[in-house]
């Protein structure tokens, strides 16, 4: 006999779940901690300055107590032969983007969580494991996470990684903007380490001014756009570049904040403490609702 799959289970429980939820749903009052402080901090990454030394990768690992090879070995540039994504071992990676004409100097792009102003991961997480803190960091709490990986699907930048190798207690892993360091008044480890100061840490509003000034002073050097100022509704990490951002691994995600469709239902859960037994059902319902929404969108397009 065919084993009952997780999906089958979700499908059935979703029906029950939505029924329960809709019977008790009132306008949501409390939600996950999602603060958009006007003083939130950010980082400006100037890819015209970055030299691809990957010291930031090393500093990140050391600051987060992860094992790493010695710094001197990071000078080996062979890693640049493949393009990498942040994963559960390296929450930030630097990629090299060569120019078509081979003699042009390559551009290096550091990739990590963008710490969105309106983070999809925060909205998507049904247990409130993700929070957007006052200083701009989007952080994640291992004790609340139930491992549903909805954040991974929701993130427009495909950032949250999952420790698939950990059988017992797999964690979702992503850059935490060095939350504990910044709480102690220190700089994020990568910012502190970067030898060329390609990474500038400061109030987001201030960084936008700095970025505009750099473009104004060297208009021939920069694309006249600050990636992250409006992307996905604005992000704490922002980029300057000499060429088209899409070619540097910074996707064109539009200017709309991603969260929306499923938010109210999820927040309802928290407001009214729906028994944990129904959580999986809820999730299934959410997925079903969203999928149906997408399908009908497609139908409209046809």
């Amino acid at each position, binding site marked *: 006999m065919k084993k009952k799959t997780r999906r089958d289970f979700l499908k059935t429980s979703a029906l029950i779940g939505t029924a329960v939820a809709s019977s008790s749903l009132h306008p949501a009052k409390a939600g996950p901690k999602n603060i958009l402080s006007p003083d939130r901090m950010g980082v400006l990454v100037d890819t015209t300055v970055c030299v691809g030394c990957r010291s930031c990768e090393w500093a990140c690992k050391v600051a987060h107590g992860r094992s790493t090879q010695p710094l*001197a070995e990071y000078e080996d540039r062979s890693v640049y032969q493949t393009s990498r994504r942040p994963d559960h071992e390296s929450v930030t990676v630097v990629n090299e983007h060569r120019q078509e004409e081979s003699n042009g100097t390559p551009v290096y792009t550091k990739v990590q969580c963008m710490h969105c102003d309106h983070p999809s991961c925060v909205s998507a997480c049904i247990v409130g494991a993700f929070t957007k803190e006052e200083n701009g960091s989007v952080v994640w709490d291992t004790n609340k996470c139930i491992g549903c990986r909805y954040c991974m699907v929701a993130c427009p930048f495909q950032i949250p990684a999952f420790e698939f190798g950990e059988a017992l207690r797999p964690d979702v892993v992503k850059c935490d903007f060095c939350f504990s360091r910044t709480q102690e008044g220190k700089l994020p480890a990568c910012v502190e380490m970067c030898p060329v*100061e390609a990474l*500038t840490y*400061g109030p987001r509003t201030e960084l936008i001014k700095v970025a505009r000034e750099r473009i104004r002073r060297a208009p021939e050097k920069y694309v006249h756009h600050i990636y992250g100022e409006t992307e996905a509704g604005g992000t704490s990490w922002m980029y300057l570049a000499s060429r088209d951002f899409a070619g540097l691994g910074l996707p064109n995600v539009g200017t709309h904040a991603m969260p929306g469709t499923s938010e109210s239902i999820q927040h309802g859960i928290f407001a009214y403490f729906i028994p944990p037994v129904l959580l999986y059902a809820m999730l299934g319902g959410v997925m079903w609702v969203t999928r149906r929404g997408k399908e009908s969108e497609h139908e409209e397009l046809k």
Partner: protein
Amino acid sequence: MRTILAAILGVCVVMVAHGQGVDKRSHVVPGMSCTTCHTSEVPTKESPSVRSCPRTLMATVRHSAEEGPDVIRMNTLSDTASLYAPVRFTHKAHAEMSEMAGGCTMCHHYNPPGRVLGCSECHEVSRMRTNLGRPDLKGAYHQQCLDCHKRWSNDTGCRSCHALRGEAGAVVVQEGKEQARERRHPVVTKPARLVRETGYDEGRLVTFSHNEHVDLFGLECADCHTSESCIRCHEKGKSASAQPVAASLGHQSCERCHNVNEQCDRCHGAEPKPGFNHQRRSGWPLRQYHEQLDCNRCHTKKNVFTDLSGSCATCHKAWTPENFRHAVTGLVLDQNHAELTCDVCHTDDRFVAKPSCEACHEQYTYPQKSPGKRVKRLAAVRGK
């Protein structure tokens, strides 16, 4: 006693007016307003009211490579816990390289006139700071170095400048102090006269007297070679190629001084042009004493050669018909003629044309008839 007091007072007034303690002569740049760098017209030492960096306009510092230090050990940020040892920077060799590019300003940007400031005088040591528009010292050092180095060799490896600290067997590329002191950029050979073929039909050949621009008119390399990076004359493999620098610049390198939309025939022609001739260019021949002077004795504005009228008083401000010693011309006027005003004999106010006797002596001509006694010209006359 009174004169001493007056002198002291005078000095004080000058100091107050021009920023106490600042050496006015080296700090004030002709043609540049104080407000380029200061927000106030009368900055003082107590209240220098300096505009915050980076400023939009900047003063340029011009010094020769010889004036700077040979080698600098950059140890302001020295940290014994760091993997990398402080860099021994071959300052003179780099200063020599910059002479073919932007000069000192390539690194010492926004430097006020006068003393050359080191990086740490503006760039803060701490990365935790309020002025985010200006990189910290570590960032500033590395940005300056790597901006050229990455174009030069694509090599941004830490060890191309830093020695590893105390690691036995590590490849130490850094030279010893003495070796570093010896490091020089080979002298760049200057061309004499360049003749180029162009697509301009009415004058296919352009003649450029490189030697005259450098030796005669006193231009510095960086006046024309404004953005030459190393890779303009070197292949990436660091071998110097014979490719002439600025070959492709066209009008760009000339139009900073010349109006290239007029007087095309000054440079363009069917034949190569002869060298510079003061009389042909200005109608004013250089003779006797003037011939021996550097251009800038009369043309005092840097790189501007067109603003003199040709009348003696432009430079010789103190000359009057009464105090002019005619003997310097090789002719002592006799008593009758010494009492005349200049324009009786010199009918043009530039004193170029032959003097005329017509006003008094109808049949006389100069030099058949002389108004005085010929003498040997005075050897050294400091024109006043």
